């Protein structure tokens, strides 16, 4: 039965691969220079000689923006999605597997870590102003504190890190401020660079994969074979690697294409709010956002919409195949 299914699925697989290869090669081969906006032909419908896919309200050629937008997908959305999933899956499985009592550290590490986080929060503004020097200084101070504490008997006593509560707290912090409002607040502080944008998106979106991973880990940990393996003397890491992850990672993987699309959507909204990529970096999201200025320009919806959809469906198809 399995063989039969595989042979039937062959052609969509080829198509999906083909499309993604096309996008990747467009991203690699796209011209890097931006054409001057054609102000005489703004919002021009497609299939006319000068711009065969039409122009946006700024007078940019849609076809060229599509090709150049592929590069943005490759350089921004994809890394951000991978980072998001890794962060979420990592934190989620830590929270689910070790819970509040099972991850043991020494007190010195705990106190130093808490001091580090607290002071970073309180003096965020002066730290941001100093940049790298301030960050290293703070880290060094925390390390010194940990080292001093570690020399005392009290500091070396074991202490259970409440991993579950910490991760849950972080999730609460991020989710209680609606995403758009969080982004507006960030924008009021400083406009991030492209790398900062990837980080910002990953840092705000990891909560849902983490939550799913935590739930799946909780469930997997309850299985009898995990108990059996634990009794057999496997270490925590071995348990996690060989008995928990094989069961839990499909839960997160199923979200990969979804996360990519979510991040492309988020990038659109960010560009729209002016926190995202600068306007001289064309992206599919920016093209889509153009529909808000001219609601009748269907070509701004159709072309980037179709390319976005095909990309996401291909990603989704290929990731599901491995399940």
């Amino acid at each position, binding site marked *: 039965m399995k063989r039969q299914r595989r042979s039937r699925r062959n052609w969509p697989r080829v198509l999906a691969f083909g499309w993604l290869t096309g996008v990747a090669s467009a991203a690699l081969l796209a011209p890097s220079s*931006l*054409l*001057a*906006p054609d*102000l*005489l032909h*703004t*919002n021009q419908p497609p299939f006319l000689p000068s711009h065969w896919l039409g122009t946006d*309200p*700024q*007078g*940019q050629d849609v076809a060229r923006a599509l090709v150049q937008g592929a590069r943005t997908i490759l350089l921004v959305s994809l890394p951000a999605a991978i980072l998001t999933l890794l962060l979420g899956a990592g934190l989620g499985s830590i929270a689910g597997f070790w819970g509040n009592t099972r991850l043991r550290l020494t007190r010195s590490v705990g106190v130093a870590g808490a001091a580090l986080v607290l002071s970073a929060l309180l003096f965020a503004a002066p730290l941001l102003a100093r940049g790298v020097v301030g960050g290293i200084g703070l880290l060094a101070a925390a390390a010194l504190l940990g080292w001093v504490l570690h020399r005392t008997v009290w500091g070396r006593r074991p202490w259970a890190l409440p991993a579950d509560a910490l991760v849950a707290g972080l999730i609460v912090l991020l989710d209680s401020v609606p995403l758009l409002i969080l982004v*507006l607040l960030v*924008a*009021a*502080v*400083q*406009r991030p660079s492209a790398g900062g944008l990837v980080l910002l998106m990953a840092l705000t979106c990891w909560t849902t994969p983490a939550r799913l991973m935590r739930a799946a880990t909780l469930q997997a940990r309850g299985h009898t074979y995990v108990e059996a393996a634990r009794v057999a003397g496997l270490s925590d890491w071995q348990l996690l690697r060989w008995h928990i992850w094989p069961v839990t990672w499909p839960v997160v993987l199923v979200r990969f294409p979804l996360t990519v699309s979510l991040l492309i959507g988020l990038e659109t909204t960010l560009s*729209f*709010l*002016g*926190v995202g990529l*600068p*306007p*001289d970096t064309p992206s599919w999201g920016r093209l889509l956002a153009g529909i*808000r*200025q*001219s*609601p*009748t320009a269907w070509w701004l919806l159709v072309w980037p919409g179709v390319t976005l959809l095909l990309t996401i469906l291909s990603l989704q198809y290929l990731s599901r195949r491995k399940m």
Partner: protein
Amino acid sequence: MKQILFGLVLLVWAGLGLSACSPTTTATSAETIRIRWARDPDNLDPLLVDNPSAFEVTNLLHCSLLKGNEAQNRFVPWLAEAQPTTRPLGDSLLLVTYRLRPQATWDNGSPVLARDVAFTLKVMNCPGLPIERDQATFGFIRNIQLDAHDPRQFTLVCAGQSGDRVSISGDFSILPEYVLDPRGTLRTVPLPQLALPRFQSVAQAFARRYQALNLARHPERLPGCGAYTLTAWQPGRYLTLRRKARWWADSLPAPPPELQAFPPQLTYQVIPDATTATMALRRGEIDLYALMPAAEFARLQHASPDQTSLRFYTTNSYEFLTANFNVRRPALRDALTRQALTYLFDIPALIRATQQGAASPSAGPISPRIARYYNDSLPLPSFSPARAAALLRQARWQRQPDGSWQRQGAQATTERLQLTISYRAGEPSFETVALQFRSAALALGIPVQLHPTEQSLLSRQLRAGEYDMNIRQLAGNPFSYDFTSLLHSRGIGNGNTTGFSTPQTDRLIEAIPLATSPAEKARLLRKFQRALAYERPFSVLYFMRYRVAASRRLGVVPVMGLVPGYEASRIRLEKKPTTR
């Protein structure tokens, strides 16, 4: 099965709802004029109004002594009977004498008297109330002297003698003493002594009573002497005003435009999104949509069903788009470089792309519409990379083999011509301008980076002078020509974000408000425009036109070049009721 049942229940319910709200045909809606607002007034306490929606409502509920009149380019009498007479006192004070209209009455029939004006000024000076803004705006009114013989006549003692002070001295809403202070507790307190400890208890008691009214959310508790009363306000949704059945100005034989009020009922609908507002206008859910986006306006103008149901108006405004140069930056400190960069804006193409051709280019910050003061002998800016390059060479910039520009700066440093251009994020026309400039500059070998920035961060950067070039919109008006905060050396750090000042322009800015005759004022203003055209602290790209689309149910809408773009109280309904 359960789902099907539930679905059926929902369907029946929805059906009931649909039958209940087929298009409205209630008696009131035929005489209601519905106007779109982009935002809520937020706060209608007369001491705290600070957004355009709130100003619009306040001007319908209350009257001031004077009101700006666009047709006459000056402030004209509103609650005052005539223009005030002025008399200098010493060399720093000015006495401004007003007389109120004898017909003016409050809702209870009692006349509007000079002591109401005195009371209003005391409210604006009462410690314990949120009066900081009024203090900053009207603090120059030091005292009020009531006339012993005529209860309607009074004299304001003002600090400073410029002509603008006279018009501002009549620009606050007069509040009824009988509502806020029926026992006249403030009447005996002289205005300059209100803050003294002697009167502390009186002032505090009054402040408590005032605060207890919560006028910010309940403006209906303060009936003014305007033509309308507020009947309903759901913040964020709508606000309804009803015309008073008997209003004092109705008895005037020939009321001036300021005292005309035709619509029986005005409803303002808050619709933040432009697409939704367009849809609502086309469906007849609102009657008037002002300051419409250019592309949508042009599209509706040429769409067949809308041509028959809507009327379209455009009018020149006093709002203009500028490209500002930060003259503190070494590369931008000389006028020639700034002139050269101005040649890189393709203004006619930008007007076509962002405003559908409906905007007027100008040589300076005074609208070409004001023919008396506009300096028409200055050339309009044009697009010419060749002249830009020539001017750059005059400014000692040298083109390098790689195409970029460099020159020797102070202390033998090498300056490179590369710029950032910042603007408010999410504003498409700013973005178009910035992109056009970027590509023109790049073709000439000048690298330009775009920095779209969130509003509050941008305003902080502008005040701190942390930018090279900036695109922003500035609003002028036809009444006042005071450029102090925008271009005077005293404005640096506040309104003067370019950091520009020269002794010559400083002198001109100081002289313009003091000019007594229009001819003298015109001479100074023309000279000032010429100086600006050479110095170019900013380049005016174009003056906007305001676009108003209105249902044909309304007669000809009186439009104006000041926000909100129309005069709500002078809109008439079309005589014969049309079927919708």
